[in-house]
């Protein structure tokens, strides 16, 4: 601007003075000198992570448990060069006027003195939250940090810089069989409408440098947490998100270098477990997570994954029907279909029937898994991280044409239309009823005690739910979101009452005295029947009960509910043969079971022995029999109200009855007999028991020569067979009788004590005469006379 020089003639001035002096004051001229010092306010990253001047800072602190305590935070280092004068640190208010200090820590942050008395430098702590009310949807707001220097030479200098405050980066971690696209709607809302910078981790595979496969987001937690950590190529995790803030990347606050130490993490389902593993277990945790919000994360596991794992490596479960498609498809087929449709990866190689390895994520999420034990048992949650959980209670996954609750619909059952018998009878109970799960993860597994909210959404619908998005947005700006310590005690103390581990802890466990030991809903945790007895052999991969007969003991392990606490209760467990429409009871055993200290309504174990055997053409038990041989299924039932549970069915091959041939111990046929007394034969076989219990039963066994018209009796002997106490009427019980002889007579022909064959060689067989049943014959063996 040009100035006007005042070249007024002296007389004009005098005249003016004369004219105005009478009624007006004279103007005065004040001359001042103002120094504009070489003075700049320097604002840098106090941590040194960013070199040079920075533009802003993220509000990434946490409120500590004690009043006024602040946990961790990015800090700005402020300084001015050496100057003389009185230095005051403050800010510029809305009218651009300097005000000493910062008025409200929770709004504008606060100054701290790194070195008390060092007036030329300060540290700046941002407010704990971007907006204490949680309602500010702006991406950034500014604070004008200023310094006033009252110069000794006169004049006051105020220098300032506007810094931006921003919300910490939000790292999103998807679940199994998903990829970052699951967050598309969520990111759109958070980036465009709520002022967050979001970064979606991609642990679905394709870029993992450790060499471990991720199977579409189903990778091993010990490796896959690295994606959350954020140093994996092709995926933006915590470290990369922080780096992008610091460099002013276009995906962060473009062009602005933002000082930041910690990010917030939102994990969906398995993504929440990966995040917890990184934060709580990883040796290379970068101390860079502020808040962790989980959505439908199975902190205590998913019971259905126990079934999934079992279906992969247990033929019984693999060949069972699923409720979803019963009786048209097996569990293996159903899971394969779900895999093909892209909903759930369950086996590491679903196309290879010989590879039974399930994907690692399912192993991790198995109820009672080692990983979950490591996460939860000793010291779950960090004290310098705040946690919250979103818990879904819509227990039906809506696939438009059908809905699924995996606890019910993937329950493997016996493939009978009339009898939907479950191999995991307790699995539906884990998901105790309407609105007790998000159709995949039960409430008791997804909930973190100190802060959770239940929303009427299913496991796949969290991301795009406006309710969930609003809750997450508020929690991300909520300084009262509880720290890990606030969750820990309650989490560990929580009794997972009737829905969970207690009733399942007994499944597959071992009874020691009256207490069950071990168990849990693990791989073997199905109600089971185990058979024992010398007569049960394996033929072609099946348990077979052949002509050797004998009594088979079925040890049946299972659970029943306690009717009245502390009162022993009678339970009848029935070993049954699986009929097409009606099951045939073989042996019903009633025992008075002592529930010990188990409360009423909960489960306790039993272990009961029952027995069965076979006749010549039937399956027999003390309480019933079924005619026929071939492959039959047996299992057990508890059908007395209020209990009802079933065992898995075990196939047993009841082979056709064969009476053993005669033989000479230590020789192979054809047998050769010499002069009297000749060769001794031992006749072995099984006899049809005429009565139950211990007894002595008389039978007659004979050796006959087979001829074209009339067979010749060579030897006959009656003897007593001792029956043991467990003998079942109609069962085949073994005998072994030595002392039969065939010899070469004086004519050089084969002869026995009851007759002569009249030949030097012939075919001989055993014939059994038994009361109460038909008399069977064995096949023949050839006997010759010695030269």
């Amino acid at each position, binding site marked *: 601007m040009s100035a006007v020089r005042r070249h007024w003639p002296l007389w004009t001035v005098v005249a003016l003075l004369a004219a105005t002096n009478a009624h007006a004051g004279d*103007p005065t001229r*004040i001359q*001042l000198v*103002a120094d504009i*010092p070489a003075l*700049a306010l320097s604002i840098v990253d106090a941590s040194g992570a960013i070199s040079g001047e920075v533009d802003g800072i993220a509000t990434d602190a946490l409120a500590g448990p004690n009043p006024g305590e602040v946990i961790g935070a990015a800090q700005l280092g402020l300084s001015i060069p050496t100057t003389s004068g009185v230095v005051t640190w403050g800010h510029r208010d809305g009218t651009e006027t300097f005000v000493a200090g910062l008025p409200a820590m929770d709004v504008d942050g606060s100054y701290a003195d790194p070195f008390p*008395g060092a007036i030329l430098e300060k540290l700046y702590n941002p407010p704990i939250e971007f907006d204490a009310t949680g309602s500010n949807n702006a991406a950034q707001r500014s604070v004008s940090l200023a310094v006033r220097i009252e110069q000794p030479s006169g004049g*006051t*200098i105020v220098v300032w810089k506007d810094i931006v405050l921003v919300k910490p980066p939000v790292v999103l971690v998807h679940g199994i069989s998903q990829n970052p696209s699951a967050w598309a709607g969520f990111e759109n809302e958070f980036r465009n409408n709520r002022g967050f910078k979001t970064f979606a981790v991609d642990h679905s595979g394709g870029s993992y440098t450790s060499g471990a496969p991720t199977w579409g987001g189903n990778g091993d937690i010990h490796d896959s947490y690295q994606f959350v950590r954020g140093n994996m190529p092709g995926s933006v995790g915590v470290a990369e998100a922080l780096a992008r803030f610091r460099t002013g990347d276009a995906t962060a606050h473009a062009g602005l270098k933002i000082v930041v130490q910690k990010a917030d993490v939102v994990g969906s389902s398995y993504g929440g477990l990966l995040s917890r593993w990184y934060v709580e277990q990883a040796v290379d945790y970068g101390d860079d997570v502020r808040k962790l919000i989980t959505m439908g994360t199975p902190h205590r596991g998913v019971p259905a994954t126990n079934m999934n794992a079992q279906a992969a490596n247990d033929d019984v479960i693999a060949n069972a029907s699923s409720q979803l498609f019963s009786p048209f498809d097996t569990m293996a087929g159903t899971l394969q279909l779900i895999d093909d449709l892209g909903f759930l990866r369950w086996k590491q190689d679903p196309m290879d029937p010989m590879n039974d390895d399930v994907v690692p994520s399912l192993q991790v999420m198995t109820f009672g898994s080692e990983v979950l034990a490591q996460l939860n048992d000793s010291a779950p949650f960090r004290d310098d991280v705040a946690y919250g959980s979103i818990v879904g209670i819509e227990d039906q996954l809506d696939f438009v044409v059908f809905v699924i609750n995996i606890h019910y619909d993937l329950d493997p059952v016996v493939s009978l239309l009339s009898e939907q018998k479950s191999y995991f009878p307790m699995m539906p109970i884990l998901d105790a009823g309407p609105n007790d799960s998000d159709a995949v993860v039960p409430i008791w597994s997804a909930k973190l005690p100190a802060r959770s909210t239940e929303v009427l959404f299913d496991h796949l619908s969290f991301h795009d739910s406006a309710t969930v998005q609003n809750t997450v947005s508020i929690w991300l700006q909520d300084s009262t979101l509880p720290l890990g310590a606030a969750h820990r005690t309650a989490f560990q103390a929580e009794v997972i009452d009737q829905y969970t581990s207690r009733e399942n802890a007994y499944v597959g466990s071992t009874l020691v005295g009256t207490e069950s030991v071990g168990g849990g809903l693990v791989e073997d945790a199905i109600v089971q029947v185990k058979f024992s007895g010398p007569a049960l052999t394996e033929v072609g991969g099946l348990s077979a009960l052949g002509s050797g007969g004998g009594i088979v003991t079925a040890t049946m392990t299972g659970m029943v509910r306690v009717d009245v606490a502390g009162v022993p209760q009678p339970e009848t467990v029935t070993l049954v043969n699986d009929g097409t429409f009606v099951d045939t009871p073989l042996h019903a055993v009633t025992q008075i079971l002592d529930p010990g200290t188990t409360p009423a309504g909960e489960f306790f174990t039993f272990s009961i022995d029952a027995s069965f055997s076979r006749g010549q053409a039937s399956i027999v038990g003390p309480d019933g029999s079924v005619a026929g041989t071939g492959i039959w299924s047996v299992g057990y039932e508890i059908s007395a109200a209020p209990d009802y549970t079933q065992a898995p069915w075990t196939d047993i091959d009841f082979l056709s009855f064969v009476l053993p041939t005669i033989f000479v111990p230590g020789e192979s046929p054809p047998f050769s007999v010499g002069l009297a007394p000749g060769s001794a034969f031992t006749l072995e076989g099984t006899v049809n028991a005429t009565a139950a219990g211990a007894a002595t039963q008389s039978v007659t066994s004979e050796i006959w020569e087979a001829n074209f018209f009339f067979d010749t009796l060579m030897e006959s002997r009656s003897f007593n067979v001792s029956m043991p106490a467990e003998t079942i009427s109609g069962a085949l019980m073994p005998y072994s009788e030595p002392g039969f002889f065939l010899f070469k007579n004086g004519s050089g022909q084969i002869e026995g004590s009851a007759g002569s064959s009249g030949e030097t060689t012939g075919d001989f067989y055993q014939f059994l005469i038994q009361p109460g049943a038909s008399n069977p014959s064995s096949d023949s063996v050839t006997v010759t006379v010695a030269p």
Partner: protein
Amino acid sequence: MNRSLRLAYVLLAIASFTMLAERSQAYDVEADSTTNTVFVLLWNGNPAASFESITISEALPAIVTQATASIIPASVPANGSDLAAIDFDVPAGAALGSSGDLVITVSGSASGQPIDVVLTVPLQVVATAPAAQGVVGVGIPAPDPGGVDSDADGVSDALEIAFGSDPFDPASMPGKTVSVPSLEAIGLTCLAALLMLGSVWLMRRRPPQPSVP
């Protein structure tokens, strides 16, 4: 911070106080006066950055009815100076003896760093005010961009004369030459100088470091 350095800061603060004390007197203005002017010689101490984007605002006391910046330089060069001016009016009803501060803020930025220079001008209404007060030389200051600067100290000869410094002595700068020092100011300044010398003596009296065997 060691004790000696802390003491030096204290002494520096005392010295600063003595200089401020000198300026605690008010400038005289007459009631019913218009086109009173505050001339501000802006001296830019930045060695390489000009002072730019200059604006001037005023906060008025009760005894000033209006103030207007009449001269606003476009920029002040590095290690250079330029002139700003603010005209203000004192109303007819201003009572004798009444006083107030006219606060002038010169805003701009140097090398991207925004800087406010806040000048508090204490005014008091008197019957007869001197025509010129403050850092006064000969004549009325006027902008002199590109004017001759014989001693190359960043202030043109014309402005040095107007503000009372020696245009041929680079050590003589407007405001740095105490033209009419009061006895009180001299006494306090001497005291400050003595104390500062004392602090230097104290710092030199640090005990010797123990020798390393």
